[in-house]
């Protein structure tokens, strides 16, 4: 038995001044600095060519599309470089042959653009523990990196990380689990 002194004074150990240090995550995409003129008659200051458009019609402005049109193959939906996910079988980090053309295209892009850097993000489904899944997800990003290495891409253009199961949703069917088992390709600056 431990002896405890009478009249033991409690010092302020239960300090409740736990300061909230809010972490603001950096937004990945800057907001477009689009200027929109609300007055269709004042055509002099409008950016878009709305003067000849029907003033009652609605013209959709797709800033994502505008940014990628023609000049960014990474975001061109018709370009294989816009394909960004490599899917894996259960408990596997083997890159399936069907993803070879896509990985080759990214390797070619990296070799042609020496300043480009990509991040490979490994993911797992939510079965198992978070830390172990983080390591399993890493296996998948490393597997894709090795494929890129074989095609001549240097490690300095690639960072392999893992989200583990953090992006996974709670699944009730195999299609859902399959969607979670993947490595995502993200270019730095995107």
């Amino acid at each position, binding site marked *: 038995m431990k002896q*405890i002194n009478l*009249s033991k004074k409690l010092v302020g*150990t239960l300090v409740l001044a736990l300061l909230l*240090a809010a972490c603001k995550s950096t937004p990945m995409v800057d907001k477009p600095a689009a200027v929109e003129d609300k007055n269709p008659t004042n055509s002099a200051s409008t950016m878009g060519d709305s003067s000849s458009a029907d003033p009652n019609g609605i013209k959709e402005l797709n800033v994502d599309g505008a940014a990628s049109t023609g000049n960014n193959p990474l975001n061109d939906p018709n370009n294989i470089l816009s394909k960004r996910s490599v899917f894996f079988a259960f408990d596997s980090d083997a890159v399936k042959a069907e993803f070879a053309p896509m990985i080759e295209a990214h390797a070619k892009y990296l070799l042609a653009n020496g300043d480009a850097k990509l991040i490979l993000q490994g993911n797992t489904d939510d079965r198992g523990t*978070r830390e172990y899944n*983080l390591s399993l997800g*890493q296996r998948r990003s490393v597997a894709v990196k090795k494929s890129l290495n074989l095609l001549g891409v240097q490690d300095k253009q690639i960072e392999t990380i893992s989200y583990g199961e953090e992006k996974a949703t709670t699944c009730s069917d195999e299609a859902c689990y399959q969607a979670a088992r993947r490595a995502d390709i993200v270019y730095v600056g995107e």
Partner: protein
Amino acid sequence: MIVKGFFSYLPRVIFTLTLGVVPHSSFAALTIEITGGGAQQIPIAIVPFAQESTAQANQQTLSQIVNADLRRSGLFKVLETGGVASRPSDISQIKYAEWQALQAQAMVVGKVESLAGNRLKVSFKLADVLKQTQLAGMEYNITPNQLRLTAHKIADVIYQKLTGESPIFASRIAYINKAKGRYALQVADADGENPQTVVSSAEPIISPAWSPDGSKIAYVSFEKKKPIIFVQSLLTGQRLTLANFKGNNSAPTWSPDGTKLAIVLTYAANSQIYLINADGTGLKQLLKSGAIDTEPQWSPDAKWLYFSSDRGGKPQIYKVSNIGGEAQRVTFEGNYNVSPRISPDGKSLAMIRNDGGKYRVALQDLATGQVQFLSDGGQDESPSFAPNGRVLLHATRVSGRGALAAVSSDGRVKQRLSESGGDIREPAWGPLLN
């Protein structure tokens, strides 16, 4: 944000030794489920303390907090005292025959007195009802915001005296609460009261780890779109980026003396274990393998690091000397054993084992190798020993959402809590508070 009333006192709940799902109208958001009890429960009467209604904390009086702590342990049968007319507040006022009639073996009396300068004097006595003697007595001179801690300390004195176990109640827990798309690392008293947010982010936070003195928490945050390890002071909120190397930075765990941490880095390969000083200097690799090595945990004597690895094909638990070298395999049954945690006495290994598709908390006797499942499982994770090793807190899932559960190290007493709207995971039980 608030894990209101986690493990907290439910005034009208009668504990039974059998499975019981106990919803309570005034805590509609909360479901506590208690299963089992100790082999022998000590019948104890806790008399409401004199003048305690003048000094309540979170709508609870001192005696109610003591009552809830002792009940939760599963080792006590806390008797209903409403039928006894007398309300003794000191040993001399106890009419033992009344309490013997209630079949109490032990009883607690006490009082709260106001002192100058907005201070309080709390005193209590623990009596043996059969022998009619005093077993323990304490006096505390406190400020009103120390009421809950004082109640937990009183419960610890009673628990220690009557069970012979080390204290447990005057401690805190950390966990991640995901609500409304945000992740918050929170710290609460061991009974779930006083939740405080330590850090919050729109990106995931995982793997909180208490420094041995309870003043800091290391954790992994994805706030910069990759796992980075931070160490944050609870007192000042100041934080240090402990490890932000290329690749993953994860699985922090403190050495028993608090001077360094074991962490897991990947650079451009698989997870590997490194040691780093608590100030972020002196990084060195502990182990080299082509496999996954992760989730390092120090043994209490600091001689060994236990970790999970798939070096043998499937994830198993291994140990390695604190200076590296050859790893020895520790688990042999099953094909998925991860998240090693060593009990404070160094004798048992808690882990998560995949038992035919169910992830359960299991406890291995390190001397005999014998394994016992402690949780019924499903998707259980993150076992964490109480400071005295008698209870393990772990994550579980209820209706698809994260919840916390606790199980006694003999597997007899189980509790589960879920909070409506919240998704709670990654619990870590901190050290005792002074």
